[in-house]
């Protein structure tokens, strides 16, 4: 049994090492480019190592665009969306998963429709709505279209359904209502699903680009992704790659670092989310 296993894992290395290397190439290029000067970059000879370790591009990127603001905005939007979502999906999931009432199944299917209609495909009407509500160029405008989440409702409903009825009874005996049940019984027991949803929501909104691009204009509401993309948009010339890559590093570094430091926990809870569904 020992022998074939070894042969087995040797094959695994043969596959994994080159593949991991290829996956890492863009990251290496990102770092290498960000430290180069423009003429160096335009040279036909390619070197991984920059001629000098200069942070000029980073300084320039920081002065060209207010990345500090963009960061703040992004964090606020992401947290705000998640916070509201947790409230709305827990309540809805409780009704769908634990209560019986007429029209429940139809309503649930109606909820799921949202999975098919994310904001980028209904940008036009939503832009009008946001404009009517006088919310253009605000952080709320970015988040509000996601305040209800069909995916989250689905996930939490599954989790709530799996919790035995008896768990609720003690709360009921103490005279507690639905809200007490959700907060004290269901959410604690559904923690893995909650975390799973939080991960999905956070990474989705951190990544978001198109809708924020449309509804925001200024630094008071622009997100990192939008700021970055604008930096690279040039009419008369190519993006300044060294500058763009420096800005990209500024944008991706914190989350990437957090991921590398906490990778075990991160990946584990992600896997858990996968199991739980």
């Amino acid at each position, binding site marked *: 049994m020992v022998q074939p296993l070894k042969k087995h894992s040797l094959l695994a290395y043969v596959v994994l090492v080159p593949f991991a290397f290829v996956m890492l190439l863009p990251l290496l290029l990102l770092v290498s480019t960000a430290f180069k000067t423009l003429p160096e970059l335009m040279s036909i000879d390619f070197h991984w190592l920059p001629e000098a370790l200069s942070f000029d591009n980073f300084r320039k990127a920081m002065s060209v665009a207010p990345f500090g603001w963009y960061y703040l905005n992004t964090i606020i939007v992401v947290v705000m969306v998640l916070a509201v979502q947790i409230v709305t999906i827990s309540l809805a999931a409780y009704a769908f998963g634990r209560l019986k009432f007429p029209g429940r199944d139809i309503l649930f299917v109606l909820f799921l429709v949202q999975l098919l209609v994310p904001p980028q495909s209904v940008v036009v009407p939503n832009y009008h709505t946001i404009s009517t509500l006088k919310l253009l160029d605000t952080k709320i405008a970015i988040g509000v279209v996601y305040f209800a989440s069909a995916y989250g409702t689905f996930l939490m409903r599954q989790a709530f359904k799996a919790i035995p009825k008896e768990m609720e009874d003690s709360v009921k005996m103490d005279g507690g209502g639905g809200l007490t049940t959700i*907060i004290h019984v269901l959410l604690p027991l559904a923690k893995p699903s909650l975390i799973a949803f939080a991960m999905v929501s956070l990474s989705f909104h951190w990544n978001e680009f198109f809708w924020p691009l449309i509804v925001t*204009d200024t630094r008071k509401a622009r997100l990192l992704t939008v700021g970055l993309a604008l930096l690279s948009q040039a009419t008369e*010339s190519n993006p300044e790659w060294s500058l763009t890559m420096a800005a990209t590093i500024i944008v991706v570094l914190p989350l990437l670092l957090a991921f590398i430091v906490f990778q075990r926990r991160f990946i584990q809870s992600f896997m858990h989310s996968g199991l739980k569904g």
Partner: protein
Amino acid sequence: MYKKIFVILLLVCVVALAWTGGQKEEGKTVYLRMYYPVGVAGPLAQLMDSMISEFNKSQKEVYVESIFAGGYMEAMDKAQTAFLAGNPPDLTVLDAPNLLTLLDIGAIIPLDDFIAQEGGQRYLDEFTPGFLPIGQYNGKLWSIPWQRSTPIMYYNRDFFREVGLNPDRPPRTWDELADYSAKLAKRDGSGNVGRWGVEIPNDYWVIKPLLVQAGGEGDNEAGTHILVDSKEMREVYNFLYKLAYEMKVSPGITPWSQSVSDFAAGKTAMLYHSTGALTYIRNSTKFDFGTAFLPSFRRQAVIEGGGNFFLFKTNERHQAAAWKVVEWMTRPENTAKWSLGSGYIPVKKAAFDVAEYKAYTDEWPQALVAYRQLTEVDVERNMMTHRMNEIYDLLNVLDENIRGNPDKSFIDKALRDAQAGADKILAKWQ
């Protein structure tokens, strides 16, 4: 425990919702929003912002927020959308040929009253000739020139020397262009192209000059018709086909923006591009390069291009304030500053005598080539039609379709199809 988290989350919501973090300046009575696109994103956006903040400091009444909106296309998208949603910007810099679209949706106001205030014809005469006509329609003036340009030819003087060409004698005709390209192109051992002779990017703005040089006409004065399926257009594409597939000295497809880096990286010896890329190229290259008029064919001709200021329909107070911004920005010293930072042609005649600009052009006469071209050869108007963006995309798709296709017989069919497509788009106007 969970109750606490719940409460905290709710609190976070409330705080986040309450915080919109605006930053209007104290004491100003008129607050304006201005969208602008720029050529070289990073540095020019910075220059624009600093000029606007200088304007804000220069007077007590108006505060302008300058909003970088991407490239020309993206800026127009944003301005259009904002107008449609009842939230128009007060002023914008947009690609000048967007005029008809903006008129069709009723988004902008004529500027004649403001111009009369500034001195009427005398004021208009201050502008660099050739840039005003594209702002005129139905006897009114609708936009003021800002970042204006002509396509020019950039060439790598080092490469010219390397192959024994005189670096002070760039090609002057299409035939010479082809000959030079053949000498300058290079291939490496594995058959990959090491260097192109010339790059003419896929953008109608550098195709139309070829068309007018061949004696053709692309679009009519009223902007209601475009002509694609013509003898002259065939000549243009046969010539481009020859460069790309018979001589193999020019790429079939080169995105507009990428071509600048190609030139800076020495991937091409010659390049057709906007004069607006001049400063960027100067900053990113170590080699010796020159600028020249576009090589000519039957006619020595070129087109103009670039962005103008438009004032949107808001209210009188805002419009008057917006005009102040435009007037201030186009003063000779300011347009000179903008040209220094970019390579665009100053829009006021007096700007050429502003000390800094004069010092710059004396030291580096290359910077004046675009302006000289404007005054020394025939200048045709940039293409301008109704449903401009749609037509423009159609022409660019046509260009990529033809030049990306090694089959020469395809040209004929593609031109016919494109003509039919264009006629359909402009059906209402014909």
